[in-house]
């Protein structure tokens, strides 16, 4: 029987490995956690996700920038690869479903990938459609998945013009879906003008914005 202290030590080790973007240590500690009988879900929440929470804080304080976020995200996914096969579905409390993609005409996906990581770390089921996503595909995937939130990303002023179009198409099929937009040229004013429900200036703020949207009265 592994002691509480040892469990705590392993979980904090996973958390710290994510924060210090030590992918190898993260993988090893996730394996140790399973070997010692620590519940995979607990290792995800108190280890990996707790680590990404700290990463988000460091980003907000301008101590971490995109290079660090990318590497922390690599460590998170390396750990998830170990733990995911051992997650029991009933344990994996899904906070929400998100469809995300970079709109047609745009291949810049660093921001979108970071948003995806933050949502996954926060317990959301994320359907990543990738980059340069044809507008029809957002609608088709929403019909199939019925996500609570659809996230649209664009870095270019040319590609952001696809956003009002896809928002209109999504609304025509599903008036209740919450739609968020983000990317360098976007602002909250433009998000409103385009008919989106939410906007986030960065990956860390995006999860909070989505939670707010779901909690808002219909």
């Amino acid at each position, binding site marked *: 029987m592994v002691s509480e202290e040892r469990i705590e030590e392993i979980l904090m080790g996973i958390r710290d490995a994510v924060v210090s*973007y030590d992918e190898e240590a993260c993988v090893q500690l996730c394996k140790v956690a399973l070997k010692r009988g620590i519940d995979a879900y607990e290792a995800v929440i108190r280890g990996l996700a707790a680590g990404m929470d700290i990463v988000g804080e460091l980003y907000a304080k*301008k101590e*971490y*920038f*995109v*290079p*660090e976020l*990318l*590497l922390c995200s*690599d460590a998170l996914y390396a750990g998830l690869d170990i733990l995911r096969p051992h997650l029991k579905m009933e344990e994996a409390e899904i906070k929400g479903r998100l469809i995300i993609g970079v*709109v*047609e*005409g*745009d*291949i810049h996906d*660093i921001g979108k990938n970071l948003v995806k990581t933050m949502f996954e770390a926060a317990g959301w089921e994320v359907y990543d459609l990738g980059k340069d996503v044809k507008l029809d595909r957002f609608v088709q995937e929403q019909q199939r998945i019925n996500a609570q939130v659809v996230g649209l990303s664009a870095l*270019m*002023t*040319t*590609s*952001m*013009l*696809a956003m009002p179009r896809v928002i209109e198409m999504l609304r025509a099929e599903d008036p209740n879906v919450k739609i968020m937009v983000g990317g*360098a*040229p*976007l*602002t909250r004013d*433009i998000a409103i*003008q385009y008919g989106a429900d939410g906007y986030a200036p960065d990956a860390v703020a995006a999860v909070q914005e989505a939670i707010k949207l779901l909690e808002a009265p219909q």
Partner: protein
Amino acid sequence: MRPPNKDKSEIMQLRQDRMSSKERMEALFESRQPDRVPIGAMATVFSSKNAGYSVSTAYGDPEKSFYAMLWTAEQYGWEPIPQYFGHTVLGALDFGGRVRLPMGEYEGAMVVESYPVKTENDVSDLKMPDPKTAGRIPDVMKFSKLQAAHDLPVWFFSRSPFCVAANICGLNQFLRWMVKKPELCERLMKMAIDHIFNVLRYWVETFGAERVFVYMSSPSESNQVISPKQFEEFALPYHIEYHNRLRTLGIKRFGFHICGDHNLNLPYLAEVSPWPHPSILSFGHEVDLEVAAEFFPDDIIYGNIEPAVIQTGSPQQVYELSKIAIEKGKRAPGGFILGPGCGLPAASPPVNVFAMTKAVDDFGWYE
């Protein structure tokens, strides 16, 4: 949409310029007051669309693109600052990746389909491109010859060595290597700066150093991507090296589009400011023009109307933002140019673009 003036009887024609565009530019660089605030725009795609061409023409047909820019500049009263046929040097394409022209409704820039460097081993196998035939260089040379034939500055447009290097392996990979394998970034930046100057030497041989106006941009170095510390460690040494080499070539005219949010990098740039003074320093809307002028009192401050507002806002909004920018910019000791804070969006409504010109006419004259 409100009318431009409260009372229609107040609507007046634009005032007559007292300087030619060339004289206005010369005045700026000789630290003399021009007749009015000059206006510029990075408007490659906007100009082509303005002339009825497709977005692929903007980057694919040097002649059509050039004349589209001339007509558009005259239509809106712009100086040719800068006037470029896309990047002269393009890391991904020149070093052997696959890059295609933009197409369709939503693309507005060259599209990288495959980077020449995908793995660590690819870095050591990388070969220097031919400075006369690689990528878009022959087409850009045709464009430059048209500029020379029309007695315009010959613009040489490249991103910074950091950005060109990141474009060789993809920014995703480059940012990871900055932390885990910095030696690979160093090698790519060294090759990037060597390539930039091999091509620039070709321009100087063809046109002479006096005619060449070098313009640089640095979006991937912004604080939306990297920290000021990383900027200091990776990007800044190559800015210094860049200007050492420019001096050796005898190039005196330089412009720098400090793209995006560089607020935390500005103290580092200001401390070394390795370019000749005055140079044109163009800022995004993320940097306050008064802050820019304080950091760089010996240079010509250029900017910084938010492009997304020009595209999605009203002419009144653009006019108001331009008025504020002009009021701040006119106090800049090194001079000021009004323009968008980044590339002018291709789908900007013509009245919004005109609102910048109108604001200069209403508030931009030096009496």
